[in-house]
Each structure stands twice: as structure tokens, then as C-alpha cells.
């Protein structure tokens, strides 16, 4: 643990070094333990104000950030697109400047445009934490995925990780790829060729359009949610065909190694990307991911919030 944290913002995993990622995961170990104490609250961010600014709807990420901030004794304000003046035509920059005028110390931003967190990070004194921007990055989701793999398997280097589904539009996939490759995992992307273009090979991953091969080799399977609401006809074959070609059915689950981990960022579409029996089965660490998300977000708020002041 010789690394020191020097960043006020967390915008993506692309710009982090392997040492920095490992440092976050080690810091999260300490915060995970806080959740097992009789009093699950520490005074690290006492007196600081965190604004959860979610321009795109989200329940679990927002709630996870909110609870993480409360456990660090910060004050929390939640804003959504409809409760903010964005719906009245205020620009993102003006909204942010107003938040700064209220002396917000940490801004957690979910936005439909890639680069929105970077835009604000460059202009604000406050820490900016990217909680998902367009199809760009979702760094805390990838960090909690890495944390869960490391917790269950002890190590990430050398593991075969299959990421299955809509890679093209997935910020979760992108952040996971950056993190996994930096920590030495072998990553295979699986999905229809329209959603898993060859360009991804440049990121140091393999591409497969045959789910059976990937499943039988995998130490970790990370399933992405099929985002009905974002699918465009020309990319997507239709739900029935998708299940037939790429769904993790209970028959396909028999191909998995006995110690293979199944992960999903949630919310899951039971019967689409994953069968109920598999989601609730022995391989599944989906609920561990939720618990670990809290620890990882506490670590990030502690590190970035402590630097910004």
C-alpha cells in the first residue's frame, strides 16, 4: 500500500493505473468492515455536503451512493432531472454553478451524455464522481465488479472473464474492460456481431459470437442487462432470438466450471439474459455485488472527498 491517492475526481477507469485501482480495492476492504459493526457509521466526511445529481433515472446506484455518503457522515441532497431546473431549460453548467454556490463538496453525476462529468470536473472545485455517463464509463460499477471477483477468487490476474450482451452501448462493459485488462484478466466479449464490433479488440480483449465456448472456459461471467428502452431495431435481433443465441439458460449453465462466478449489474431481466434458476443459483454473486458496491463507493467518496477539501 505505498500508492497515494491524488485525484479529486473519479471519471473513468481508463485513466487509472493498476496501482490506483488496487489501492481503491484495498481501501474498500476497510470500509466493508464498517458495515459489520454495531454502529455502521464513521465521521470521515462529517460536515461535507454531497449532491446526488441523477439526470438519468437510477435507483440502485443513487441509493448506494446515498447510503455510502450517510455512513461517512456527509449530508446528502438528491436531485433528479425532473426536480432540477434542467427541465426548465437551465444548462448543465449553470446547474452545477448553483450547486457550487451552495458549497457542495462532492457531486455524484449520472448523465446521458458521455463526457458530462469531465466537463464539470474541469470547471468545479468540488469532487466529481461519474455515476454513469452515456455509453462511456460507469467506474464505480466496474470497481465493485473487480472487488467482488477479487474477494471470491483472491486474485484477478490470469482469470478468464466473459462479458456477455450489449457491449456496444454499455458503459458497464467499457469500464470493466479497462479495469480487467489493467489487472491482468483475459477478457472475452460475447454477443451479436452488431453489438460486439471488432473494434473492441484494440482494447486488448477477445471477441466471440459463440456463447457455449466462452461459458465453458470462463472463471467469471458478467451478464449485461438487455436495455429494451435503448435498443434500436437495426442492432438487435429480437428478444426471442437473443435468448436462443445468448441467454444464460439453465441448460447452458451446465457448461460452467463448478467455481465460475455469475455477475450482473442489475436490474436483471429474469428469463431474458439470465434464467431465474441461474440468477438465484450457486454460481450467482449478484447480491454480493450490491453489498460490495456500498464499500467501494465509501472508499471512492473518502478518497476523492478527502482530496478535494
Amino acid at each position, binding site marked *: 500500500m505505498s500508492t497515494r491517492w491524488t485525484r479529486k475526481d473519479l471519471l473513468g477507469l481508463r485513466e487509472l493505473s493498476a496501482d490506483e485501482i488496487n489501492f481503491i480495492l484495498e481501501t474498500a476492504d476497510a*470500509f466493508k468492515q464498517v458495515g459489520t459493526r454495531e*454502529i455502521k457509521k464513521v465521521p470521515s466526511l462529517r460536515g461535507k455536503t454531497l449532491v446526488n445529481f441523477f439526470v438519468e433515472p437510477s435507483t440502485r446506484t443513487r441509493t448506494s451512493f446515498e447510503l455510502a455518503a450517510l455512513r461517512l457522515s456527509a449530508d446528502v441532497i438528491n436531485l433528479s432531472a425532473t426536480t432540477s431546473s434542467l427541465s426548465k431549460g437551465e444548462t448543465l453548467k449553470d446547474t452545477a454553478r448553483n450547486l457550487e454556490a451552495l458549497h457542495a463538496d462532492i457531486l455524484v453525476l449520472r448523465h446521458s451524455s458521455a463526457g458530462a462529468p469531465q466537463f464539470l470536473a474541469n470547471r468545479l472545485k468540488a469532487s466529481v464522481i461519474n455515476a454513469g455517463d452515456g455509453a462511456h464509463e460507469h467506474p464505480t460499477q466496474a470497481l465493485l465488479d473487480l472487488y467482488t471477483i477479487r474477494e471470491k477468487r483472491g486474485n484477478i490476474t490470469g482469470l478468464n472473464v466473459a462479458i456477455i450482451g450489449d457491449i456496444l452501448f454499455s458503459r458497464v462493459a467499457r469500464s470493466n474492460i479497462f479495469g480487467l485488462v489493467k489487472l491482468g484478466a483475459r477478457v472475452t466479449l460475447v454477443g451479436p456481431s452488431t453489438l460486439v464490433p471488432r473494434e473492441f479488440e484494440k482494447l486488448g480483449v477477445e471477441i466471440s459470437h459463440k456463447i457455449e465456448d466462452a461459458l465453458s472456459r470462463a472463471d467469471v461471467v458478467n451478464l449485461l442487462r438487455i436495455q429494451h428502452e435503448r435498443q434500436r431495431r437495426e442492432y438487435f435481433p429480437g428478444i426471442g432470438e437473443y435468448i436462443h443465441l445468448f441467454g444464460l439458460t439453465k441448460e447452458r449453465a451446465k457448461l460452467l466450471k463448478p467455481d465460475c462466478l455469475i455477475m450482473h449489474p442489475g436490474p436483471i431481466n429474469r428469463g431474458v439474459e439470465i434464467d431465474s434458476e441461474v440468477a438465484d443459483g450457486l454460481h450467482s454473486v449478484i447480491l454480493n455485488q450490491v453489498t460490495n458496491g456500498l464499500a467501494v463507493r465509501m472508499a471512492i467518496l473518502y478518497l476523492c472527498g*478527502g482530496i478535494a477539501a
Partner: protein
Amino acid sequence: MKQATQKTSGAAVLTMDAEAISRALRRIAHEIIERNPQLTGVVLAGIPSRGVEIARRIAGFIHEIENVNVETGVIDVAMHRDDVGTRSELPIVRESKLPLPLEERTIIVVDDVLYTGRTVRAAMDAISSFGRPARIQLAVLIDRGHRELPIRPDYVGKNLPTSGSEKVRVRLKEADGEPDTVSLEKQ
């Protein structure tokens, strides 16, 4: 004036060698045994990183003297400090490890140097988030004075009068990879 400071800067006075440290910790072990007839409920909880090593050594001496294994633990103080963001460097957080429940136990907080008392206050806050121990005591290798809070140690290896501009440097083989020493450095 500047020349004079440069001349003295880095001058270190050796205050304790390995043998003196060992004698001091052995005496603390005797005092803990004397003050705590129920050694089975005692937990030696070190503050990382040297406090953890000192706690381990005191536990070793207690075992030598009384043939009792007292429990040891680790208390993280980083996330309980009240000066996050005001110091130039963010303290590294570590996992706390304490035997539970605390209710019937005596927690002895162990650290290398007692100075302002703020670290000890943070340690007591951390302990109370795990429960309510029967009592908390404090053991330190060096008490250098200059308290900013109403805190006093129960067991002291050595009282070392210092000025605010001096620095107490403790090195322990297991924690630092250097021979055991305590020295006083003029700034």
C-alpha cells in the same frame, strides 16, 4: 541563522536502543498483569502500524510471565480522524479487527508515541462503534507530552520531554525493517 539550522537539522539523539525498548515493554506487561487480575478479558489493540507490533510484543511478554494468551486486535483510526481534508496527505484506512462482543472486555489501546492525544480519541471513537467495552486503557512506548485533549496513559515505556519542534522517531524491526530504536530529532 539559516546556516545554524542547517547544521543542526537531522541531528538525532538515540534515546532507547533495542534492549531498553524490550525492558520497557516487559515492565508494561508486568503492570498490565498487576492491574488486570482477569487477563482473559483483556484485548491488546494496536494502532497501525507500530502499535500493532508493540501490542504483539507485550502479548508475548505476558505469555512468558503468566503463561496466558491475551487477545490482540487492530484499531483503524484513519476513518475516525477529525482532520480529514485539513492535512496534506490523506491517511490510509485499514481494517479494524477486534474480538466481539466487547461488552465484558478490557481494551488496552497500544501505540508507539503519545503526543496530542487526537489519535487516541479517534481510537476510542472507533472502539465504541463496535460496542461498549467494560473499560478502555492506554499503553504507549513513548509519552512526549503536549496534550491537546484530556487524555493520559495508563502504561508508559518512557516519558520523553520534548519541544514542539522536535520529532520522535521510533523504528521497530518487524514494522520498519530497521533495528529497534527510539531517537529524538531536532528539526
